[in-house]
């Protein structure tokens, strides 16, 4: 058994290393001068520079992309919360004969290939005159955020103990105040996970943003991918710095999301 366990531990350690090392390496490259990146033998020791990072932060296109990403994702998530949470609560707590169909409809939106949605929307936004604007992107992303938040919030609301809500009814609370004052606060932790997940999903979205923007409404992933298309003339350090900037916001949610995973599976156990 001994050597087996040792091998198993080694495999796990290797997997853990592979999970983060590429990212760490990218972050290191963001701090390197070009001569330290373009080497046959990878360099671990080098004189760090902040030039790449300050170049990225100083570029108008990157800052516009960052602004567009924050506004488009922020507002789409807000719309998702306002429309998705109440709908999820209604499905979870007021079962009717359509509940199963509604859940399947919401899930099936995820089956739609993004190209199939993006092409017609591009034509539609062009005709209305909203192509390449943030409102068009926000409305399109709302479809994603509403459905994802709804899908994840239904089980979150179902796991709120029914007794608490019943007690509130006895105390004379109306249906709406039970939702506001009882269900929302009790389910808050799981709901935060669902909301964070929907944010990460739209922040990372690429294809739809690529098709719906040409200059004004480009989001950060699009700007980052364009940096690379200027060929190898662009110093690699700058590209690495833009990858780091793009990756930071989703990683901020690491704690919330892993906590969310834990609560989801702890419920299953009971």
């Amino acid at each position, binding site marked *: 058994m001994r050597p*087996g366990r040792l091998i198993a531990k080694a495999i796990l350690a290797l997997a*853990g290393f592979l999970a983060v090392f590429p990212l760490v390496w990218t972050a290191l490259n963001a701090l390197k001068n070009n001569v330290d990146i373009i080497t046959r033998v990878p360099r671990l020791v080098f004189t760090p520079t902040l030039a790449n990072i300050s170049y990225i932060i100083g570029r108008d296109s990157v800052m516009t992309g960052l602004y567009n990403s924050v506004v488009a994702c922020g507002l789409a998530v807000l719309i998702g919360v306002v429309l998705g949470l109440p709908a999820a609560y*209604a499905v979870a707590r007021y079962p009717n004969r359509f509940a199963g169909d509604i859940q399947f409809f919401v899930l099936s939106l995820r089956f*739609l290939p993004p*190209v199939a949605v993006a092409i017609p929307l591009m034509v539609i936004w062009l005709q209305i005159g909203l192509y390449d604007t943030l409102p068009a992107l926000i409305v399109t992303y709302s479809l994603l955020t509403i459905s994802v938040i709804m899908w994840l919030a239904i089980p979150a609301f179902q796991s709120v103990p029914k007794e608490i809500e019943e007690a509130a009814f006895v105390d004379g609370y109306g*249906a709406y105040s039970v939702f506001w004052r009882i269900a929302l606060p009790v389910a808050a932790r799981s709901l935060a996970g669902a909301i964070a997940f929907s944010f990460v999903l739209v922040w*990372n979205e690429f294809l739809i943003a690529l098709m719906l923007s040409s200059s004004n409404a480009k989001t950060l992933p699009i700007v980052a991918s364009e940096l*690379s298309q200027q060929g190898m003339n662009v110093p690699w350090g700058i590209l690495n710095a833009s990858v780091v900037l793009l*990756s930071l916001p989703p990683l901020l949610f690491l704690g919330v999301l892993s906590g969310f995973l834990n609560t989801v599976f702890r419920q299953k156990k009971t």
Partner: protein
Amino acid sequence: MRRRSFLPVTFLVPTLAILLVLSMVPTLYAIVIALQNRELSTPGYSWVWFSNFADLFLDRRFLNAVWVSVKWEIVTVVATMVVAIGLGVLMFEVASPRLRNIYCLLFIIPVLLPRVSAAFVWKFAYHPLYGIATYPYRLVTGGLIVDPLSKASTALFAVASVDVWQWGLFFAVIVLKLLETLPPQPIEAARLDHARRWQIHAYVTLPMLKAPLISLMFVKMIESLRSFDLIYVMTRGGPGVATETLDMYAFSQGFIESGKVSYASAMAVLMMIATVITFTMLWKRVQA
């Protein structure tokens, strides 16, 4: 106890109405466009009905894209599940609770990255001369060059490895959590019967988890359809058409090469029909 209330109506109807409009308008419009001959460069158009679809079946590049997409689906789904189950079981067997928590955090990181970021990270890593992933090969062979992204035989697998890096590690965490929810008695019983560790998992724990594992595979099949970002950044469908999936080909027909929006839309409509039918059938079977 619960009184009759209008809450379900006020909470559900606006949201569902908006979802219906937002999803049905583009879906139906995609079909309309597919039956016309719109191009980005010219404003006028006429109805050509099914000729776009007829052209598709004579288009060898389209047939290639179908094949590449199928290969992509199979490779990524199978590899993800193998990695997830393998690492999940290993964590369950040999990692202490503290170590498990650390691994879980580490393994979630890749999937949180924007796919564009993940694609860049690995595109650099696979660089034949300066990449960190090709360095061991250069070291061992004394400077020979390997370029996985520009060889037709390896490009698809190189891109798929990034997808598995993101999803396989993440699913390993879920497999571990699923194993932790199992009751300990059957495992104890098997151990008393002198079953080996791998036998316990092959014959006891994994069969007990069959339903959630199938759901997990279902999720991965849906997410594998979203390969565009990775392929767009890493290979642009190349070398040649070796990694050109359907969405990549639709995009390049519609936007890069010729601006044939209707032709691209016809392709998208076929994809949509295929995926909706397949996944609806699968979902009903998973639920049953």
